[in-house]
């Protein structure tokens, strides 16, 4: 690892090598241990780390509890959403099963259409072709 690579990594990940990506950590630690320049880069990065850490918002337990209470109140006021895999799959599964039953029932109950003769077939083809525009495939 070169000192420039080390500097780039410190600029991204800060002054604690233990928080750098594992793939570069060992090389970085070796360089930091043997190079005053690398150690100075780390110290500089660490200074910014500490400035940022000082800005970390503090959240009191009371505030968190109050918010949790509000969430619980809002949930209690709302109807319960569908839960679990059974409920999530029940509606689509029953809809599909109903459609299948109706389809099979109609198929068995309705009489079959009589076979179409040649003249009727020709009429159907001519009428259907006339109903289709030349650029139908662009629509």
């Amino acid at each position: 690892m070169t000192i420039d690579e080390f500097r780039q990594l410190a600029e991204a990940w800060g002054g604690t090598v233990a928080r750098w990506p594992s793939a570069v950590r060992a090389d970085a630690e070796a360089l930091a241990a043997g190079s005053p320049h690398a150690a100075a880069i780390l110290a500089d990065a660490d200074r910014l780390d500490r400035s940022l850490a000082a800005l970390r918002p503090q959240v009191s337990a009371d505030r968190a509890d109050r918010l949790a209470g509000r969430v619980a109140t809002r949930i209690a006021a709302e109807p319960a959403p569908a839960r679990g895999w059974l409920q999530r799959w029940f509606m689509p599964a029953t809809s599909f099963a109903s459609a299948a039953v109706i389809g099979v029932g109609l198929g068995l109950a309705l009489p079959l259409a009589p076979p179409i003769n040649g003249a009727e077939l020709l009429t159907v083809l001519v009428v259907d072709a006339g109903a289709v525009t030349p650029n139908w495939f662009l629509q």
Partner: protein
Amino acid sequence: MGGGSESDEDLMARVAGGDNRALRTLMGRHMGRAVRMAEGITRNSADADDVAQDTFLRVWKQASRFDPARGRFLGWMSQIVTNLSIDRLRGRRTEPLDPDIDYADPSPDAVVTLVAAQERASVDAALAALPERQRVALVLFHFEEMSGRDAAAAMNIGEKAFESLLTRARIAIRERVAAGAADRRRP
């Protein structure tokens, strides 16, 4: 039943079954983190409160979508907080600094010098001025101390892209703080 020894993921299985006590336990564990994360990103305590509440409402409503095989609860929650916080920022025209945010005292002996206070205010202003995704990267890595991999996953980006965001964020803060210091030195 407090669920003290149950993992977050086990609790989520119960939440998905409609157990609001399990949700309560999860909120007890992670509400503070959700608020802190949201406040770091939005820089506004009222927005942070709203985001944190909406996060757990979403956890409740979408619990069945959580898949422990794809990651831990904390990563999933962080993703929700991040998305809601960014939505909140995009709904705002300006991003005023919130004077009521209570920051950790960085000095062990509680003596904050004027120079240190100025520097902190300067870093704070620089953080607030960052583009939202750069700020999110800094918050997840520095405030929440998430690993690069977890933070990248929470932002739904690759580790390299996350590294790039962090680099640009830190450079921008340095430059802005240096410019502020130069301005203060001018007569």
